[in-house]
């Protein structure tokens, strides 16, 4: 079975940022994403998802490596200073390259 390389970009950040983040995705040309509620602990304290107003979200995007770099660069420049946000990337294999 033929497989194609793509990049999985995972962002964990404040739920309050969701709408802004999706606007950034649109502007940068991200075509698809998955968002889940998340909770955990980090440099800016503990976040619980029981209260949506201060929970975290985990956003996953599978795309071309160049697009993943652009998204990461934009988020770092715009949000790293003021918001709780981490971001990491992994190489993944997909079966339908036209989808990502």
């Amino acid at each position, binding site marked *: 079975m033929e497989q194609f390389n793509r990049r999985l970009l995972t962002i964990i950040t*404040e739920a*309050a*940022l969701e*709408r*802004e983040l999706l606007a950034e995705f649109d502007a940068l040309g991200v075509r698809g994403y998955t968002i889940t*509620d998340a909770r955990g602990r980090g440099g800016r*304290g503990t976040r*619980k*998802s*029981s*209260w*949506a*107003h*201060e*929970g975290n979200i985990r956003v996953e995007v599978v795309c071309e490596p160049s697009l993943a770099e652009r998204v990461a660069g934009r988020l770092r420049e715009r*949000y790293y*200073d*003021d*918001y709780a946000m981490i971001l990491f990337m992994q190489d993944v294999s997909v079966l339908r390259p036209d989808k990502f």
Partner: protein
Amino acid sequence: MAAMDPVVLFFMLGIGAGVARSDLRLPGAIYDFVSTVLLLAIGLKGGVELARDTGGMSLTEFAGLIGLGLALPLPVFAVARYVGRLSRADAASLAAHYGSVSVGTFAVVIGYLASRGIDYESRAPVWVVLLEVPAILVGILLARGLSGEVAWRSLARELFLGRSIVLLVGGLAIGWASGPDGTASIQPFFFGLFKGILALFLLEMGLIAASHLPTLRQHGLFIIAFGVGMPLAAAVTGAMLGRLLGLSPGGMAVLATLAASASYIAAPAAIRTAVPEANPALSLTASLAVTFPFNIIVGIPLYERLAAYLHG
């Protein structure tokens, strides 16, 4: 002394369970459901009463309330900035939180007045709607200045279409359109169960307030003194405005409570995106862990007596 209102005891149970690190935890969906029912019930009740009497709101009252919403953040900002020596962004964030209102606190005060048989103006839910937004706008202006970069369009959308305003205004409209007879079939759910739903809401709020107590220590005495002093001063202002507007003693108590209350949903969400450099934990901790409990447990009975006293 009269027995304590059970809903307040539910709040204390939540705080106690949270402090003791009990595994008690209500799912987020329950909080959403319970707060939705409360907002709709408050709106419906106001709408039904408005349909019953035609006594609308005068232009003076409208202007007085908008003026209160615009003015309240200014002394809050000054105290936070020059007494508390906070950064401009943090002081502006506190100004937005304390100038705006808490619907949860409103729900408790109307429950309190109802259980004591004290009447208040049926249009009170409209006051909540009028007082929620102006202070948040003033807070953002205090942080950013007039020329600052703020995405006003998306901010306005977030503020005016926020769920509390949509549900309150929606409830008011439905209650007003259907009237007392039309809403008879849904009254057992929204009105009959109001206190029970409020009890559940306050249980959850107690847990949330307790989860913010540890951050209190990082912010020191100022935030505690601020979280208690500000509502007291604002309550006096609110009660006096109520007197000037010719409200009933119950209405004055409601307005005093609204002025004393601090937002913990609309303001944090708007400030987080419009003034990102403000520390969100500072304002939220003051509002949720100090002012909300203070108003629920001590403030409301006090404001009711203050209103009765000022009314003469």
